[in-house]
């Protein structure tokens, strides 16, 4: 049987889509609340530094953002095809490279906290 990297690509896409489906609306609610006079304790500088300063917090944030990035990148590749862009090879390199760059940036900033 021919080897294919499709299961890995699709598996990460599905994992990212699931994580996003469960968490993104609540995350956006959380960051919207201060504008409406409710300041969640986690969003204070000291508390968030404490959370992202711990290795477990870093791991959680890194895993979530990596999966979300991969999900968005893979779906964008398909979406661009649906919008009539037929240069799939080029699109694939661009979107996965962007996701990889975002992942590296996430790790870099997490390590600086």
């Amino acid at each position, binding site marked *: 049987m021919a080897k294919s990297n499709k299961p890995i690509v699709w598996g990460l896409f599905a994992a990212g*889509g699931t994580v996003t489906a469960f968490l993104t609306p*609540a995350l*956006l609610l959380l960051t919207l609340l201060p504008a409406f006079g409710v300041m969640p304790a986690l969003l204070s500088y000291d508390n968030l530094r404490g959370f992202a300063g711990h290795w477990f917090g870093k791991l959680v944030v890194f895993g979530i953002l990596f999966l979300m990035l991969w999900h968005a990148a893979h*779906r964008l590749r398909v979406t661009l095809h649906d919008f009539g862009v037929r240069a799939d090879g080029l699109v694939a390199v661009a979107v996965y490279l962007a996701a990889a760059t975002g992942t590296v940036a996430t790790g870099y900033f997490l390590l600086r906290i």
Partner: protein
Amino acid sequence: MSAHGKPYVREVSRYGWFFRSPRYLRYMAREVTCVFIGLHVLILIVALMRLSEGREAWDAYLANLGSPAGVALQMLMLAFAVYHSTSWFNVTPKAMPVQIGENFLPGVVIVGAHYAGWLVASVALLFLAGVF
């Protein structure tokens, strides 16, 4: 070459095909959510950058989120995020059917379980973040 003449090929517009049916349009709306999910992750990466730069940078970042433009953008992203969640959970019976013996678990049970999980995860996240 077909032995039975030229086969009929229906003309399909390469760019505007999804305006032909509400079903295609819903599909495209679902796919386009990825642009807003990607944008949201970018904003979260900026949050990590500002957090690593110190207290002043973080407070300036929070002020930007709370500005009228920041609120409008987050509302827009929230709308697309909710559409992603509902469209994602609504197809779970097709994506991962659950077979028990000879029968399949009814789709409404699988979808319902995901919506319940979504509610629990959202409340838990807000609770752990100290909202209530």
